[in-house]
Structures are given as structure tokens and as C-alpha cells.
């Protein structure tokens, strides 16, 4: 899996490519924990090129979500493929994450996502 971070104005976009699993999810975790901080940018995870995600990948996203609530950072996902969406739905996490369809929608919408207050 490849993880790259782009900074666009006050938004950090974390691009993931490949499989997010037990082996690779620590790389995503490292990027998330580096970007999600108090008075930091809004954070978006680009999942359009994630071909596979398992429970450790989902756990990493949940950890990012919880940290975003603590630091009052706007946090969202976009570009989910059907397999990633199906595991999020199974775990009922699609109701918890802010999920956008496309990058354009995410960049436009993340600014209006109020950071959740309190964990």
C-alpha cells in the first residue's frame, strides 16, 4: 500500500493506494496521527484506490475519527469502493464517518463538517 499526503489550503488529503490490512495499516495510522491535530487542517482520506480493507484498516480509520473528535478536526472519507463500503456498513460505521462520493464533493464539503465535540 502507498500512502501520500497532499496539502490543499487548509485540508490534508491522505491518498491510499492498494490493500489496507494488518501489514500496511500502520502506515496509514502514522499519516493520520501526524495530520490530525489541534488547530491543524481538515483531514480527508482518499479511498478511491483502496482495493481491500480489513478490520485493522477499519480500526485505523476509527482511531483517526476518535482523535479528530478529541482535537476538533473535521475528518472525512471519500471515494469508497463497494467492498470498503460494505464492511463499513456491516460494522454500522457508515453512520459514524462523514463520507463523500468524489474528491470534488469532499473538498467542497469538508469545510462545513462541524468537528464532533467530546469523545
Amino acid at each position: 500500500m502507498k500512502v501520500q499526503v497532499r496539502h490543499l489550503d487548509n485540508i490534508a488529503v491522505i491518498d491510499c493506494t492498494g490493500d489496507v490490512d494488518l501489514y500496511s495499516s500502520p502506515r496509514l495510522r502514522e499519516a493520520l496521527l501526524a495530520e490530525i491535530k489541534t488547530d491543524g487542517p481538515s483531514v480527508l482520506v482518499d479511498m478511491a484506490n483502496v482495493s481491500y480493507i480489513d478490520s485493522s484498516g477499519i480500526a485505523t480509520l476509527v482511531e483517526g475519527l476518535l482523535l479528530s473528535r478529541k482535537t476538533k478536526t473535521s475528518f472525512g472519507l471519500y471515494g469508497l469502493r463497494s467492498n470498503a463500503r460494505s464492511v463499513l456498513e456491516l460494522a454500522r460505521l457508515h453512520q459514524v464517518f462523514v463520507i463523500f462520493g468524489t474528491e470534488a464533493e469532499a473538498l467542497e464539503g469538508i469545510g462545513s463538517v462541524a468537528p464532533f465535540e467530546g469523545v
Partner: protein
Amino acid sequence: MIRIVIGSEPRLVCVLRTVARHCSQQAGFPQPEAEHIALAIGEAAANIIGHTYRGDLHALLALEVRRFPDRLEFVMQDWGPKVREDQIRPRSLDELRPGGLGTLFINSFMDACRYDPDCREGNRLKLVKFLSRKDACCNEGPGSASR
């Protein structure tokens, strides 16, 4: 029957997933189901590495795949301490916390999941996925006999 043995390294779990996906597709499962089966096998392997072997990278785990006309059976073997089946429970989805979803995915995507009580050394976890009648019909032919 296919049997593959790997070291207990997270980077090798993708090998088991690939085998599971390939066998599932060949057995006639539609692509989304083949992906779900691969995910369940990956989760079972991750559980062995993380919980049974507690991150020991020098142990072994094996996957056997057996094909029958109506189902695929996957057997995950490890040589770690005995797993107490009564202690494995999916966690409540009402709590928002990282981790604990692997068992949910295994139970949701497979039709049966059972430890072999007669396994003398380590653990043998059998995971079964039945073909729907439609998929089984589409897959009938000389190559679909039980192996």
C-alpha cells in the same frame, strides 16, 4: 485440495487471501462474495498472528481449501496455544472503538465457522461457505466434482 503454509508474518497474509479469492472465483462465487471470503480468511489469519501467536513472526500457519459441489471449506491450522472458543465473541457495535471487528466479518461472510475439538496440536478452524443454488448450477461441469 490446496494446502499452503506461510510464516506468521502480516506481510504474507495477502498470499492466503489471494488463494481464497482465486478458489472462490473458480468454485463459482460471484466477485463480491469471493472478496468477502478472502476478507474472512485474512481476518482468521490475522487473529492467529495477533492473538494465538501474539506477534511471533517465526511460527507457521496453514490454509487448506477443499472444494465440494455445494460448498468450499477452508481450514486454518496453527500450532499455538489452544483457543478457548467460549471466549471469542464479536463486540457490541454500539461502542465506537478501534478493533474487535474481525470476528464479526468472519461470522458474517462465512456460513459456518468452528474449531475442531479433536485437534491435538494447535488449532484447526474450519470455515465453510455454501454456493447458492444459482451459483452451483452455473458452475456445473466436468471440473466441478468434489476433490
